[in-house]
């Protein structure tokens, strides 16, 4: 059914963006391409506009946090070409302590809340986003809950100390 191969997609991206493509690999059934942060929006726009790749649908996007890496924050986008049933995952990492990504809400309005979610949970800002505001958490919340350093529970509770498995 799908006549777009991973090789074709990689070749097209390499031709267009060259050294902006950091790496690409197949993770299970998914082609995952890591892109330099400053051109992530161009890559997504290219995948969206290209007549052959035609990734016209944004399946999902979310933030990532790897505190042990030098480029600790990242965004993940999953695009889908429903006609050829081809999916591709774009990732981009940055070393900034307060990352700012380009918004893709002008490509897909559906990215609006997804980016707000990434802001809400990771503190990423999106340049050009129409309403950069917390979405699921209360506005007065301090900190970014899905960053790894954010504690799941109140760390000062003495009544819930479990010596065997930790808290």
């Amino acid at each position: 059914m799908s006549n777009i191969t991973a090789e074709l997609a990689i070749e097209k991206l390499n031709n267009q963006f060259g050294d902006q493509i950091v790496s690409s690999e197949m993770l299970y059934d998914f082609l995952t391409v890591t892109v330099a942060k400053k051109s992530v929006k161009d890559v997504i726009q290219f995948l969206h506009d290209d007549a052959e790749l035609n990734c016209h649908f944004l399946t999902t996007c979310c933030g990532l946090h790897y505190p042990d890496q030098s480029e600790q924050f990242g965004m993940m986008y999953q695009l889908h070409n429903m006609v050829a049933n081809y999916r591709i995952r774009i990732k981009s990492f940055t070393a900034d302590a307060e990352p700012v990504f380009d918004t893709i809400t002008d490509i897909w309005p559906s990215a609006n809340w997804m980016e707000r979610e990434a802001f809400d949970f990771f503190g990423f800002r999106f340049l050009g986003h129409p309403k950069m505001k917390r979405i699921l958490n209360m506005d007065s919340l301090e900190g970014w809950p899905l960053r790894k350093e954010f504690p799941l529970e109140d760390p000062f509770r003495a009544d819930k100390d479990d010596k065997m498995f930790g808290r």
Partner: protein
Amino acid sequence: MNSTKNEIIKEKEYSTLNLGPTHPATHGIFQNVMKMDGELIVEAEPTIGYIHRAFEKLAERRPFAQITPITDRLNYCSSPINNMGWHMTAEKLAGIEIPKRVQYLRVIIMELSRIADHIICNSVIGVDSGAMTGFLYVFQWREFIYEIFEELCGARLTTNIGRIGGLERDFSQKAWLKIEQLMKELPGGLKEFENLLVRNRIFMDRTIKCGPISAERALAYGFTGPNLRAAGVDYDVRVMNPYSSYQDFDFMIPLGTNGDTYDRFMVRENEMWQSMSIIKQAMEKLDRLDDKTSFHADVPAYFLPEKDEVYNTMEGLIWHFKIIMGETQMPKGEVYHSVEGGNGELGFYLISDGGRTPYRLHFRRPCFIYYQAYPEMVKGGFLSDAILTMSSMNVIAGELDA
């Protein structure tokens, strides 16, 4: 002096209506601040997050087996689909092959819950358009499906059904009898419901052209599931990326054309008939299979041993303890798996670093994504249409807020 007076008159005064957070007509905790021009909606601004429970954060601290109960609470109208989606994601990561019989059993469970989900949504469309009767008629079937779930796993709403590697137990004789009874009696019940609404002039006048969305806008807003199909796009995960042996089944994807409330209603209505046909096919296929007993894959490292073994053998006890505490090895990797949920493509994006819990788990929750289109869909319409549009979109608060 005169000119300022004219300007004041020219400037229309709108009223603000706060619909929700708890409002009897919204079926869940949704708040919409609406700017009204009399009875017409000028602008709507949804506020979400009232029942946010930080599932993605919780999942980073829970062993894989303990994440299933979290998924129950996403779309709680069809929990079994969410459970199965999660099991399949973990199985994909660990590379577990599931026996055919278990796949068919899972299909039966998933289609039953799809019927239950659609019954709720469609009958509530009836209620919101002023027809309480249909709701009361079909809810007995939803109740009956919940009785089947009770027979299968002991729970009704938050089912936690199945395990990574299969099902926790085989279907009982009583469960099979109930499924057969449902297959016999549901068509009549559904027909009765359709007779009430489908060609009803009042219902059609009320729902046709109510909250429409075009196929292009629906795709741009990330619609999936019945809402997208009502707009005329034949995207169904069961057909596009078959999981759990859906490729073995012969079924249609019902489509609409206008993407309005009536089309969404009809797509769901027809999907229920398709689901019934899938369940029938699955039962026939199960009859033809040589394998009559297996209800899980042979993976002692992931699938909980029988209680008898746990209490009487050392090895059983060790495996039980290891699985419950998340000490079995999950491979490193990154995997995305999606299933066709009750209201769209429910995806699980899982990053595992080989530890006892996922490193990161992101849920692609269909209604969180498509609910963004709500302000655009109700703009310029009546308030009563906005209520109908929301119920026909099948927005489930648990899934919306994660």
